[in-house]
C-alpha cells in the first residue's frame, strides 16, 4: 500500500544535511548572481570577495559534516554518499577554487573583462565537482559532471567577450568551442555507458551495481556483455574529462587558449571530479567486474595500459613544448597518468584502500603545485598574451627572485624531488603500485619522472642559469595573485615536509 511520504520522512531519507557543503555552494552561487546584478559599477570587487566568503562558509560546513571521520552517511535516497573520501576531496576542491579566484581577480582586471558572472560560473563548477566526489549513482555522476563542465566551457571562452579581434580572444573562443564539442561528445559516452550498465544490472546505484556485477560477469550472457561494454564506455567518458591518453587530444589547445586562471582551475577541479567518479565506479562499483582466479584483472590491465600510454606520451611530448601553458598542459596529462597508476593499483585485492588514499594525496599535492605553477606563469604573462614562452622567463631569478624561487619549488615538486608535496604524492602512488605487484608500471612511472625532470628543470635553467639580455620585467601582477602563489607555495612545502598532515587526513578513507 502506497503511503504519501511526510516531510519528516523526506528529510530523513534525503538527509540533506550531509550534502550541505555541495548544496550550500550551489545555493550561494544563486545568491551571488543576484547580488552581482545589483552591485554598482564601482563595487564590482564585492563579487569575488563574496565568492571567497562562500568558499569559507562551505569549508566550515565541510568540517562539521565530515568531522566524525568514521561515519559514512548516505543522502538523497542513496544517490549521494558523504564519507571521508568526499570530505577530503571537498577540501581540495575548495582550496583550488580559492586560489583560482585569487588569480582570476587579477587576470580579469588586467584583461579588462571584469564580469561578476565569471565567479558565479567558477563556483557553480566547484559545486559540480563537489557533487561528483560524493556521487553514489550513475545519474548523479552524469548530472554533476555536466554541472562541473558546462560552466567550464563558458569560462574557457571568457576572454572572447571583449571581441577586439585579438589573437587572445580568438584562441579563447576556439578553446571554449573545442572543449564544448569534445566535452559533449564524452558526456555521450558516459550516458551510453550508464544506459548499458543499467540495462545489464537494472540499477544505477553504484553499491547495488557492485552486488550484482559479480554474478553477472561470472556467466556468459548478453548482460555480461552489456556490462563490460558499458563499463568501458564509462571509463572512456571519464577518461576524456581527466585527459588520459588516448582521450587527451583536446587538452593542449584548450589549456593554451583558455584564460590562464581558468586553465589552472580546470586542470585541477575537472581532474579531481573525474578521478573521484572513476575511483567510485571502479573500486566501489565494478570491483568484481571480470574475475580470474578470484581477482578482478580485466580493468586493472586496461587501466595499466592507459596509464603507461599517458605517462609516456604526456612526458615525452611536453619536452618539445616552448609555450609554458602548453608544457603544463602536457605535464597535466602526465600527472593524470600517475594518478591512473594508483587507480590501477586499486584493482589488486587488499590494496584498494591504500591505493585510493595515495591517489587522494597525489591530487592534493598536484592541486597546490599545479595551481602555483600556473599562477607564476600568469604573473609573467603580458597583456597581449605574450610572455608565456620558455624564453620569456630567462633571467627571472635576477629580476624577480622570489617569483623564481616559487617557480623552482613548484617545478621540483612536479618532478617529485623530496621535501616537496609532489614527492609525497609520487611516493604514495608508487608504494601502492609496488604493494599491488605492478612493478613494471612503477618502474615506467619512475623512469618517466626522470624524463619529466628534463623539461621541468629547463624552466629552472632558464630562470637561474641564463641571464636575460633584455630589460627587467616589470611586475604586472597584483597582490591577489601573489597570495595565490603564497598559498600554493605554503601547501607544497608544508605537505612536502610534514608527511603526517596528509597521510593522517586520508587514513580513514575507504570506499570499498
Amino acid at each position, binding site marked *: 500500500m502506497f503511503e504519501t511520504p511526510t516531510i519528516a520522512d523526506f528529510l530523513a531519507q534525503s538527509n540533506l544535511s550531509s550534502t550541505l557543503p555541495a548544496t550550500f555552494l550551489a545555493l550561494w552561487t544563486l545568491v551571488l548572481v543576484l547580488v552581482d546584478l545589483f552591485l554598482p559599477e564601482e563595487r564590482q570587487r564585492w563579487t569575488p570577495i563574496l565568492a571567497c566568503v562562500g568558499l569559507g562558509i562551505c569549508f566550515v560546513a565541510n568540517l562539521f559534516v565530515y568531522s566524525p571521520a568514521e561515519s559514512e552517511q548516505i543522502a538523497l535516497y542513496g544517490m549521494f554518499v558523504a564519507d571521508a573520501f568526499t570530505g577530503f576531496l571537498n577540501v581540495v576542491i575548495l582550496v583550488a577554487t580559492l586560489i583560482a579566484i585569487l588569480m582570476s581577480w587579477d587576470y580579469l582586471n588586467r584583461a579588462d573583462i571584469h564580469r561578476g558572472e565569471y565567479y558565479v560560473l567558477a563556483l557553480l563548477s566547484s559545486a559540480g565537482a563537489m557533487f561528483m566526489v560524493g556521487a553514489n549513482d550513475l545519474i548523479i555522476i552524469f548530472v554533476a559532471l555536466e554541472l562541473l563542465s558546462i560552466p567550464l566551457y563558458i569560462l574557457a571562452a571568457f576572454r572572447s567577450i571583449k571581441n577586439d579581434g585579438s589573437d587572445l580572444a580568438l584562441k579563447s573562443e576556439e578553446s571554449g568551442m573545442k572543449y564544448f564539442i569534445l566535452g559533449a561528445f564524452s558526456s555521450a559516452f558516459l550516458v551510453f555507458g550508464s544506459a548499458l550498465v543499467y540495462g545489464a544490472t537494472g540499477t544505477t546505484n553504484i553499491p547495488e551495481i557492485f552486488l550484482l556485477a559479480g554474478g553477472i560477469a561470472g556467466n556468459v550472457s548478453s548482460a555480461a556483455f552489456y556490462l563490460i561494454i558499458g563499463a568501458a564506455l564509462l571509463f572512456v567518458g571519464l577518461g576524456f574529462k581527466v585527459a588520459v591518453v588516448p582521450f587527451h587530444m583536446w587538452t593542449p589547445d584548450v589549456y593554451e587558449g583558455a584564460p590562464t586562471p581558468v586553465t589552472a582551475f580546470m586542470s585541477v577541479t575537472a581532474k579531481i571530479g573525474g578521478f573521484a567518479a572513476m575511483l567510485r565506479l571502479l573500486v566501489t562499483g565494478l570491483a568484481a567486474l571480470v574475475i580470474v582466479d578470484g581477482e578482478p584483472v580485466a580493468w586493472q590491465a586496461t587501466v595499466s595500459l592507459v596509464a603507461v600510454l599517458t605517462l609516456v606520451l604526456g612526458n615525452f611530448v611536453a619536452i618539445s613544448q616552448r609555450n609554458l601553458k602548453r608544457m603544463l598542459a602536457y605535464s597535466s596529462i602526465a600527472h593524470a597518468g600517475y594518478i591512473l597508476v594508483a587507480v590501477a593499483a586499486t584493482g589488486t585485492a587488499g590494496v584498494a584502500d591504500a591505493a585510493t588514499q595515495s591517489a587522494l594525496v597525489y591530487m592534493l599535492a598536484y592541486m597546490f603545485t599545479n595551481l602555483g605553477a600556473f599562477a607564476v606563469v600568469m604573473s609573467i604573462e603580458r597583456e597581449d598574451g605574450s610572455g608565456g614562452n620558455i624564453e620569456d622567463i630567462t633571467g627571472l631569478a635576477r629580476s624577480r627572485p622570489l617569483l623564481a624561487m616559487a617557480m623552482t619549488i613548484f617545478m621540483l615538486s612536479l618532478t617529485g624531488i623530496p621535501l616537496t608535496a609532489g614527492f609525497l604524492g609520487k611516493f604514495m602512488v608508487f*608504494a601502492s603500485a*609496488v604493494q599491488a605487484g605492478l*612493478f613494471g608500471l612503477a618502474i615506467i612511472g619512475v623512469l618517466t619522472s626522470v624524463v619529466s*625532470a628534463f623539461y621541468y*628543470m629547463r624552466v629552472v*635553467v632558464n630562470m637561474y*642559469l641564463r641571464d636575460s639580455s633584455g630589460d627587467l620585467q616589470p611586475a604586472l601582477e597584483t597582490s591577489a595573485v601573489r597570495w595565490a602563489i603564497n598559498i600554493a607555495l605554503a601547501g607544497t612545502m608544508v605537505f612536502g615536509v610534514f608527511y603526517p598532515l596528509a597521510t593522517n587526513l586520508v*587514513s580513514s578513507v575507504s570506499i570499498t
Partner: protein
Amino acid sequence: MDLTGLSLTTITLFIPMIGLVILLFMNGETQRDNIKWVAFGTSIVAFVAAVLMWVNFDPSVAGLQMAQRNTWAEVSLGESVINISYFVGVDGISLLLVLLTTFIMPIAILGSFGSQIFEERGREKLYYIFMMLLEWSMIGVFVVHDLIIFYVFWEVTLVPMYFLIGIWGAEERIYAAVKFFLYTMAGSILMLIAILYVGNKSGTFSTYSAAGDVGVIEMVQSYEGEGSYWDPAPDEEEDTGFLLSSVESFLFLGFLVAFAIKVPIFPFHSWLPDAHVQAPTAGSVILAGVLLKMGTYGIVRFNLTMFPEAAVAWAPTIAFLGVVGIIYGAWVSYAQDNVKKLVAYSSVSHLGFVVLGIFALNSQGLQGATLQMVNHGISTGGLFLIVGMLYERWHTKEMADYGGIWKMMPAFGAISLVISLSSMGLPGLNGFIGEFTILMGSLGSKYLGFAFTLIATLGVIMAAVYLLKMFQHVFMGEHRNPLSDETRYKLQWNEIAAFIPILIMIFWIGIQPIVFFNMLDISVDSIAALFAP
C-alpha cells in the same frame, strides 16, 4: 631503550640548517661581507659538533651510538601500516664520513672567499645558502637509518649541487648541470622502487632495530628458513639462475645502480668529468670530497648488509668493474691536457680502489675502502683546490699554459707536491695506507682472484705517472705566462688557511692510521662477519 630524546647526531645534522635560516634573513647587498662569515662560522660549528661526536663515540661498542628515533609518519600499505621514522645515529663508518663532510665544508667555503666567480655572477648569498643546504643533506645521508628519509636526503643533495654547477660553473655549465641532475636522478629513482619493495616486504623502513621494532638488516640476518629472506622458496636451479632470477639480486641491483652512478663505477662515469670540470672550485672539492663517497657509503651500508647473498654473487663482477675503473681512469687521466679533467678522471681511478676494497668482502678490504674514501676526499679535494687557485690567477685549465710555477710560488709548489704525493700513495702519507689495506684485503679475499690485486697494483703505478706528469707540466720548467699583477704570486691568507688542515690530515692519517682504524674496527667487522663462513 628510549631513543626519542635529542641526540648529538641530530644537533650536528641541523647546525647547517640553522646557518641556512640565518642566511635567508640577511640582506645580500648590504651585508655582503658578513654572509661568507656566517656560512664559514656555521660550518666550523658543525665541525666542532662532529668532533664532539667523536669524543663521545665509544669504538668498542657495536651498533649505533648517539641514536635518535622518532616516528615521522604512518603510511598504510595495503592492510599494514608502515612507519617512516626519523632515525639517526652513527657507527664508526658513519662517524668517519660525518667528520669528513664537516671537515671538507669549511675548507671549500674558505676556498671560495673572494673568488672571481662572485665578481662575474654575483649572488653570493644564494651560493652560501646552497652550500648550507648541501652540507645538511650530505650529513643526513651519512647518519639516517630509515630508507625513506635516506632517499629524501639523497635526492635533496642533487638540488644545491645542480645550482652550484649551473650558476657559478664554467662555460659549459648548463649542459653539465642538467646532465648531472638527470643522470643521477635516473639511477636513484630506481632505488625508490627497491626501497618500496623492501618496506613492503619487511613492514619497516628502518634498517636497524630500535625501540622494539626490528630493522630490515636484523630481519635479513636472523632469517633461518628455506632459501634467503628475500627468496623464501628458491628455485630448483638457484645455483645457475641466482644472478638474474632472484628477488634479492634485483633489489641489490636497484640499490647498486643508484650508488654506482654516484661513485661512479666504470661504465656509469660519464657525468663526472663534465660536472667536475664545469663546477666552481668549491663545487668540485665537495663533489670529489664528499658527494662521491655517498655512493660507496651506500654500497657498504645497504647493499652489503641487506643483500649479503647477492653481494657475494655479484662481488667478482662489480670488483672487476672497479678494477677496470682503476686502469681506465688512470689511462684517460694521463691523456688529458686539461688539468681539471686530469684530476677528475683520477677520481674514477681512485674510487675503483674503494669499490675493489668493498667487494673484497672482508674486514681488511672494508676498512681500507672506508679509510680510502676519507683519503680521497682529502687529497683530491686538495688537488681541486690547487687547480682552482691556479685558475683564479691564470684563467686557464690547459697544462701547456702553465709551467715553472714552483719558481714563482715555492710554498704553493711544495704544498702541491705533498698533496700530489698523497694522492699517488706515497708511503708515510695517507693515500698509501688506504690503498695498501685495500690491496691486502683483495689479496686475502675469498671471492676475488689474485688477478684483481695484480691489475689494481698497476693502477698505483699509473697514478704516479699521471700525477707526476701534471706536476711536471704545471710546476716545473720555464715560467711561460707571467702574471701582470706581481702581488698575485703570493698566497692569500684564506688559501693558506684552507691548505693547513689538509696537510695536517695527510700526515696524521699517514703516520698514525691506527686512530682511524680503531674507530672503524667493530663496525666494519660486524659487516664483514656476514661474509665469513
